[in-house]
């Protein structure tokens, strides 16, 4: 535990170097998903680890130069140092994308496809509607409703002119 605490000063993936030997089974394999991860978030400006974990020799020498005066570094060197530690700058991580267009397009396409599927179903899957939907039957239903004076005050039958035997204009 003390070793891990001392190693944590390095600020890199120190946990992986702590050894846990139990019951004679040896060292458990440390899965990468259990270790601190790098992610670019505006709310978390300094992630737990540097973006580039394995430095090339040029990067290593640049890191050594970083220990000296920063004014001696050129702009390119400063940008390189930034890119070692971080993947995207704030401007890059905040960029808008056009993904919403694909999403809306996909949505409309699926709705359209569903419409086609429903139409096909109506034609090929469902049987005929009941005979009570025939125009003649419907006409008889309408006549029956008018005879019963359904909603004669303000509703249905109020629109029928019983003297002239037609709908009121």
């Amino acid at each position, binding site marked *: 535990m003390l070793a891990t605490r001392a190693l944590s000063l390095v600020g890199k993936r120190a946990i992986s170097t702590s050894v846990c030997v139990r019951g004679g089974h040896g060292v458990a394999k440390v899965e990468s998903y259990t270790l601190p991860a790098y992610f670019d978030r505006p709310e978390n400006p*300094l992630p737990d680890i540097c973006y580039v974990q394995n430095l090339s020799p040029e990067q290593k020498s640049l890191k050594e130069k970083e*220990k000296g005066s920063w004014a001696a570094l050129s702009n390119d060197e400063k940008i390189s140092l930034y890119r070692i530690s971080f993947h995207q700058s704030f401007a890059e991580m905040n960029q808008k994308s056009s993904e919403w267009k694909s999403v809306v397009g996909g949505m409309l396409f699926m709705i359209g496809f569903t419409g086609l599927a429903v139409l096909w179903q109506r034609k090929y899957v469902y049987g005929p509607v009941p005979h009570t939907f025939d125009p003649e039957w419907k006409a008889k239903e309408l006549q029956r409703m008018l005879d019963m004076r359904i909603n004669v005050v303000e509703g249905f039958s109020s629109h029928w002119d019983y003297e002239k035997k037609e709908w009121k204009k």
Partner: protein
Amino acid sequence: FQNFASRLSCIIVCFPAPLASRCYSHGKVETDEEFDSRWVTYFSKPDIDAWELRKGMNTLIGYDLVPEPKILDSALKACRRLDDLASAIRILEAVKEKAGPHKDIYPYLIQELQPTLTELGISTPEELGIDR
């Protein structure tokens, strides 16, 4: 710079009265000055380690305020002690983001921090061209 979102522009000169950052009815309210000095002290620790810098900075960015120049000054000097230029530039980017729609805060911060930036040789994101 606390509760900045509720103010209009041109508030650089006058600072708002201390407003409660916690909703205790009985507890003591920390003043702005106490808050600032607490954070300046945190980053001024001579043997601050990288974890503490990251933790402090991420926590500070989590608050609903733009940190005072003196806190950032202390944080940048901590970066220098840790030989971490990238984090120093990242801090400047982060506070610009924190200012949000109030575009006059960041230039003020840079103006106040200019002596430290020149002394330590930290370039702003604008100078490096990574602000696009």
